[in-house]
């Protein structure tokens, strides 16, 4: 079977709910980015990106610095115009539309709270520009303050607030305008770990409650995995993969994505048998044959990479029955993390493999120590073959 068929089979098996919008045929995307390119002089920041984002999604643009994700976000907000391509929001072409006219609001990375206005005035700012009357402004602002639990701080100025409080003011300020699309630029970047976790869930709740479509830009893959309905991984101005977090993690489409998300072991090898629903690869690095139970598009003898996630590998001191997907080496280093153990195993081919093992039971788990010789093995459906 082809990889895409495996994926859809899996999701049919796991979900009994209604299919999400992006899987439905004929669904109309809320935000359509068509062939958008942005050049700054000679430098191409965004290269012919096309994305369809559906209503009520929490879509994450994930990438390192320089990947183009922030530029793409700014084009959605209206602070930059695409060099070529179109952006359509709810069917309306945004070309030439200035930021104050767009049904889009942005939460800035630095929050951009007006220092000369207090919390109430900051939140009320956008409403006043819409011409809402004073009474209604007051009502709505007070309600919003309740929602973000800042009612007691309404008269404070931004410099009298903590980082987390400022973030909530920024969020409230954008949300109160009931935008169709909310853009968030690294929303959790400035927060410490505990606050970050709390805020992650808060964001997701708010989004579900208010039914707003979110586009979040982040470089933190954990954040993207937690928040997103779908992730768009960007590299060098190009969107390399767009998928649900599960699929991005389990079925990365390229070496880049596999290595960007989570940790992964990569085995280089050559295709020796290419069937419709399986591939056999010879790998010097692995020192054995690798067998994968999905078909790929490739030419005979092609050089490929096989990606195996650390948690999919079994570590045993006894040689397992299988011949394929089984490698041999010694424990170079290990770390006991409490909930799991991490092993760095050095194969006799020289390759280093990372294995994680949950500490599921206390007695029956084998524990391994330095220099112990071990066998590593995994199932045929646990790895992915990457041609790029």
């Amino acid at each position, binding site marked *: 079977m082809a990889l895409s068929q495996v994926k859809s089979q899996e999701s049919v098996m796991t979900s009994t709910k209604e299919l999400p919008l992006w899987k439905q045929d004929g669904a109309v995307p809320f935000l359509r980015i068509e062939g958008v390119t942005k050049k700054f002089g000679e430098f191409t920041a965004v290269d012919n990106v096309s994305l369809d984002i559906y209503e009520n999604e929490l879509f994450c643009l994930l990438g390192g610095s320089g990947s183009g994700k922030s530029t793409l976000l700014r084009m959605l*907000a209206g602070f930059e115009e695409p060099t070529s391509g179109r952006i359509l929001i709810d069917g309306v072409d945004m070309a030439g539309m200035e930021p*104050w006219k767009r049904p889009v609001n942005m939460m800035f990375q*630095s929050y*951009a709270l*007006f*220092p*000369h206005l207090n919390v109430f005035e900051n939140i009320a*700012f*956008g409403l006043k520009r819409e011409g809402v009357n004073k009474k209604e402004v007051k009502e709505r602002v007070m309600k919003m303050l309740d929602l973000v639990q800042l009612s007691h701080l309404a008269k404070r100025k931004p410099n009298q607030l903590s980082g987390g409080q400022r973030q909530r003011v920024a969020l409230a300020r*954008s949300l109160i305008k009931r935008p169709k699309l909310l853009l968030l630029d690294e929303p959790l970047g400035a927060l410490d770990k505990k606050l970050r976790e709390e805020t992650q869930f808060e964001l997701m709740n708010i989004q579900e409650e208010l039914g707003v479509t979110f586009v979040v830009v982040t470089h933190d893959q954990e954040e993207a995995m937690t928040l997103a309905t779908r992730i768009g991984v960007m590299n060098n101005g190009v969107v390399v993969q767009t998928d649900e977090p599960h699929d991005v993690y389990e079925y990365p489409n390229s070496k880049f994505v596999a290595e960007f998300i989570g940790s992964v072991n990569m085995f280089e090898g050559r295709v020796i048998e290419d069937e419709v629903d399986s591939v056999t690869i010879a790998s010097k690095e692995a020192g054995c044959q690798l067998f994968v139970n999905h078909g790929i598009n490739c030419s005979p003898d092609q050089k490929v990479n096989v990606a195996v996630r650390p948690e999919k590998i079994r570590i045993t001191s006894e040689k397992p029955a299988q011949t394929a997907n089984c490698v041999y080496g010694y424990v170079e280093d290990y770390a006991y993390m409490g909930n799991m153990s991490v092993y760095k195993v050095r194969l006799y081919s020289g390759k280093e493999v990372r294995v994680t093992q949950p500490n599921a039971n206390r007695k029956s788990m084998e524990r391994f120590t330095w220099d112990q010789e071990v066998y590593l093995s995994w199932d045929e459906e646990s790895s992915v073959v990457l041609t790029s």
Partner: protein
Amino acid sequence: MNMRALSLPDSLVETLSRLTMRFNFLKGIKFGRAAVISVPTFWLALFFFIPFVVVFKISLAESEIAIPPYSSLWEWDAEEFYLEIKLTLGNYLYIFEDALYVEAYWSSAKIAAVSTLIALLVGFPMAYLIARSDPNKRTLLLALVVLPFWTSFLLRVYAWMGLLKKNGVVNEILMGLGITDSPIQMIQTDFAVYLGIVYTYLPFMILPLYTALEKLDGTLLEAAEDLGAKPYQTFFLVTLPLAIPGIIAGCLLVFIPAVGEFVIPALLGASDTLMIGRVLWDEFFLNRDWPMASAVAIVMLVILVLPIMLVRRNQDKETV
């Protein structure tokens, strides 16, 4: 600048250190500290504070034909333990009664205020443009603003004389273009004084404005636009309020010295363009009435003391 090129030779540093250490040695570091603090303080106290006390003292004296041309405030006879103190308040009374002086103070404040306002209106767009330019252009534009400031103030006022007089350049051009038949009286008018003050003090307005505007966070303007504010609304609701410390600084830097300005009304103004600086000058140099001049100065100081205090307070606010 290459740091290495600027550091003093080690031998010099050693000598200087040893010299200053002598002070430190006497009472430890505290003495050295006290010495360093007191040098500029002493200088300022002697040459910038005591003089005002002296001015006040002399304002209470009477003008005399003597050297120096004022009376003494007291007479002390050691033999008879006789002390007579004579304070003349007549000078002050004269100031408040004579319409000329009151007019002059009022007119000075008015002219200074109007000039400050004009300078603000002219200078703000320039400062804004410079602050929003990209860094390369910015240095050039700042240099352009600062260059006139470094050339002689007197000569620049003189330049306007050449332009504005009856047979000056502006009139020549106007007549040449046929706009007027006979030369317009531009010099020795209030108009010329306004022009002169705005012209010479413009860099003092632009630089603090530029500093305040340059510090403005660009994302604040984007946030305002994102929330629905059109450009002019963003300007009045965000840019302007945040630029206020700069505006105040610029206005004070222009207004206060302009009130006491002498050269510009002397060269460009009419003989009846009343500015208090000129009155003081004439009292001193023409009438040789030192006590009167002193009284005029003290009243001017009293009027200006509040704005002068504002300068420091505004400066401190800006650095927060």
